[in-house]
Structure formats: C-alpha cells, structure tokens
C-alpha cells in the first residue's frame, strides 16, 4: 500500500467521522442523565414505586411520582403482543419454508416485508378507526390494553417472522437431507433438526420484537386510552411509559419534566439490555 499524502488526509477525515458517529450515543446518554438528575435527587429512589399515584408537579415535594402502573401497562401490552406474535411468526416462517408452494411462499414473504415497512403511526390510525370501534361494540370504551396489544402484535410479527424465516433458511441443506435419509417425518425434522439449529436466530427475533414492543410509542398512544391505572382486565384503558412521555412533555416543567427523562432513561436501559442479549445470542451460534 502506498502512503500518499491524500491517503493520510483521507484517513484523518474518516477517523474524525468515526469519532463523531461513536460519540452520538454518549451524547444521548449524557443528556438523559443530566436532564434526569434533578428528579432523581428530589424524588429519590423509593418514591417511584411507593408513591400513591402519578400526579407529577414541577416541584417534587408536592407531587406524586408512582411509575409502577405505567410500567405494568408497558409490560402487559408488550407481553401479550409477544405471546401472540411469536407463535404466529414461527408458523409463518415454517409455512414459508416447508409447507407453502414456492409462488405462495414468495408472495407471503413479500407481504410480511410490506407489513414490516408500515409506519407505526399508520398502525395507530388503523387501530383507532378499525379495532377500537370493534372492541367498543363488545366492551366500551374500546381504547384498551387489548387494542394496544393487538396493534403491537401486528407490528412485531414481521420482525420475528422475517428473522425466523432467515434463520430457517440458513439451516444447512445437509442437515435436512440427513434427516430425510434417517427417515424423519416433516414435523419430526422441523422439531428435531431445524428448530434446534435455528434457535439462535429465532430467539434474536423474539428479543428484538420485545424491544420494539416496549419502545413503541405512537401506536399505543393512539389506541390505549392513556388512563394511568394498573390494568385488571384486557378491556381497561392503560397508559404506557412511552405514551406518558409523549403526552406530558408538552407542558411538563421542573421536576415533572425531569421525571419524564428518568422514565426515558429506564426505557432505554430495558431496550438496550434486550438488544444486547439478542446480539450475544446471535453471535454465539452458527446459523443465526
């Protein structure tokens, strides 16, 4: 490699760009920490859990700062969505790889990719005008945990399905031929050979889907009703942590504003932990 002067300048430029790119995440974390500092100091640690309710005020002494009902809202909506989307997504992947005729499989995969590309605000709009009235017909008010979980299911289904499908595709053909030669049936092959070999990719998909469900804002904001309460039934309106930030940032001041940054920081920690886990799993196995 020759070392010309332009080459040296190029490398300097590239290193500088790399530094800026790498610094963005530090900047994000730094600003979240700075902004959440007043509330963490004034509200302390235990009051996020022990306060009787969520009535935030600009000075921590007069307000109530219980985040737990919204944490339950987030976990319930995301949990139900993952529980519904995972089997459907795995069925979709198995359908594409093993049961559908090639033309149908190609069409189906294309459709899942399109579903993955629909913006969350459009899912929210559709949920609000199609699902909520339907639920309202059976159990008013309609805007509910159920509506949120249903919309989230639709949003994370493509994520899990596409990653599972790619994982199934990466299982070496030799495994399949060996299974066929050993006389395994099709379901036996899928359960005994394909799923174990592809489990890393499948888990990665589920973890990323969970992260997406927990971090999603717009769709749940539009269909969940946004009442701060611990859900006791599927038809209760709920408010998630993300929706809370979107709703209250408009007017929050002082410690209240800072409290929203605390919840943002908590969300970020949860989602990053999930993504890191997915990464770790994906790296450890051969056919992710």
């Amino acid at each position, binding site marked *: 490699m020759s070392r010309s002067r332009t080459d040296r300048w190029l490398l300097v430029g590239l290193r500088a760009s790399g530094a800026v790119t790498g610094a*963005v995440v530090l900047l*994000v974390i730094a600003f979240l920490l700075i902004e959440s500092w007043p509330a963490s100091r004034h509200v302390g640690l235990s009051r996020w859990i022990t306060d009787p309710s969520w009535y935030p005020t600009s000075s921590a002494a007069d307000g109530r700062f219980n985040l737990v009902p919204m944490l339950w809202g987030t976990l319930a909506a995301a949990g139900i969505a993952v529980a519904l989307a995972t089997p459907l997504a795995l069925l979709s992947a198995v359908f594409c790889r093993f049961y559908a005729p090639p033309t149908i499989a190609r069409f189906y995969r294309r*459709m899942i990719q399109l579903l993955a590309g629909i913006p969350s605000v*459009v899912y929210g709009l559709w949920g609000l005008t199609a699902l909520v009235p339907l639920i309202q017909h059976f159990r008013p008010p309609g805007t509910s945990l159920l509506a949120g979980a249903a919309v989230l299911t639709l949003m994370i289904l493509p994520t899990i399905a596409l990653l599972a499908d790619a994982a199934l595709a990466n299982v070496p053909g030799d495994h*399949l031929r060996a299974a066929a030669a050993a006389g395994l049936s099709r379901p036996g092959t899928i359960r005994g050979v394909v799923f174990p070999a592809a489990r890393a990719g499948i888990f990665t998909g589920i973890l990323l889907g969970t992260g997406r469900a927990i971090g999603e*804002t717009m769709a749940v904001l539009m269909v969940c009703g946004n009442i701060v309460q611990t859900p006791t039934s599927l038809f209760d309106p709920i408010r998630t942590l993300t929706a809370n930030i979107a709703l209250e940032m408009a007017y929050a001041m002082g410690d209240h504003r800072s409290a929203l940054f605390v919840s943002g920081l908590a969300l970020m920690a949860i989602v990053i932990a999930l993504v*890191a886990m997915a990464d770790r799993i994906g790296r450890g196995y051969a056919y992710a």
Partner: protein
Amino acid sequence: MHDQAISWHAAWPAPRLSARRNPDRFIAITAWLGAIAVTTVFFWIVVDLIRLGGAQLTPAFITNAPTSAGRAGGIGSVLVSTALILGVCLAVSAPLGIATAILLAEFTREGNRYCTAIRRSLDTLAGVPSIVFGLFGYAFFCVYLRMGFSILSGGLTLACMVLPILTRTAEQGLRSVPDEYRYAAAAVGMTRTQTLRQLLLPAAMPGLVAGVVLGVGRALAETAALLYTSGYADRMPSSLADSGRSLSIHIYDLAMNVPGGEPNAYATALVLVGLLIAINATAVWLGERWTHRKLSTA
C-alpha cells in the same frame, strides 16, 4: 441458502390419516390457517387505507395547503416540511455514516479497539427507542443549542437515529466487494484514495444506496422523535429555523386532536405508505443500474 431445495412434498408424501392422528397434517393445517389469518389482516389494513383515503387523494390534495386544522385542504406544506426534514437528516447522516462505514470496512483490522468501540456504540444507538431520541433531541438541539422547535432540530434528531442502520448497511456493501479488487488496485500502484474513489465505492454503490434508502425509510416513518423537535406547525416553512410537521405527525394530529380529521388522515397515510414503497423500489433499481454502468466504463 437455496441449497435446501429439496421438494418437501415429494420427500414426504402425506399418509392419508385424520389430522388428529397425523402431526404433519396437523402442522400443515395450522400453518395454512395462521398464514391465512395474517394475510386477511394485511388486506384488511390495505383495503381500509385505500377505501378511506383513496377518495380524498386528488392532485389538489398533494399541492394545496391544509385548511381548518387539516380537515380540509391538502398536504402541500406538510410535504415540503417533510422533504426539508429528510434533507437535513440525510445531509448530516449520509456523509457521516458512509465515512464511518469506509473506516470500519476498509481501514481497520478485525478487533481494532477504536473500531470495536464505534461498532458497539452504534449497536447501542440502534436499540434506543424513538421517543427517547425525541427527549434527547428536545434537550440537546432545541434547548441546549437553542434551535427551538424547528426543521433543523427534527432533521438532526433523525440523523442520530438513522446513523446505525445507514452505517451498517453501507459497511456490508463495502465488505461484499471481492478482495481481488483491492489486490489488483494495490498491484498496479493505485493509492488507497484512488482505489476507493474509482473502484470500491462504485462497486459498493448498491449497498451504499441501500443504506441511505433504509435510513430515509426509517426517517420518513418516524413520528415520536419529531413530536418535540420539529413541532406541529402546518404552515409553509420559510426557513430551516421554522417549525414544520412531517407527514407522520400530520396523520397523528388529524387522528387524535382534530374531530372529523380521519378522512384526510387516511389520505395522508396512503401518501406516506405509497412514498415508502416507491422509494424502496426505485432505490433497488437505481443501485443495480449504477453498478453496471460504473463497472463497464471504469
């Protein structure tokens, strides 16, 4: 990947048993039912979009300014704001992301500490929820840098958000260029700058374009990160310092805050989804054409 093209139907002719006693039959039926259910919901969404939004979608809707809080009129000014936000986002994220990708793919060895740090920070950034980007953008660009609610703040916030996907895709594009290109360039004594400009970048163009397009797609679909950075104003922006709403925020506002805004919300959603599909398709096509031309004349 297509190595496994065994004909499953030939390999396992289904024995004629009832579904209850035959697991293969049972899975086949469940898989078909699941696929049919997902397809039904997909068409439900598509049909709703076209049925409820199609009627309002006229040339005038695209060009006119919104009136009566968006209930009437069109989305002209919203489209202009969206384009400006995307422009700011790309002007910052594309050079940064592609330069970082070149650094990671071409100028460092596997395991270099500096690059591992950059890669890890990008992975972390990719996991940050969009509303948290909104919080950051508000605190940093709007308040700390005193940009206020503006197209500039919104675009810069989105630039931070799309950096990971843009960089990663561009890096993959560069890595997919065969090493023979690099050896050949070194053998004829080309400098690394020349190699990059005349050989690697043209050859990796589909990957670079794909990265930018994925970034645009992500930015165009984003709402939560813009709520408190670019703001809500629906008038025609006169500069980057003005507040301006994106298509996605327009949909949100019409659906949630404007009674009777749903028809126009659906029409806007139709425009947004159509744009996303069109951008994706043209970019794939462009990337392919570009490679052919560059490589045949190089």
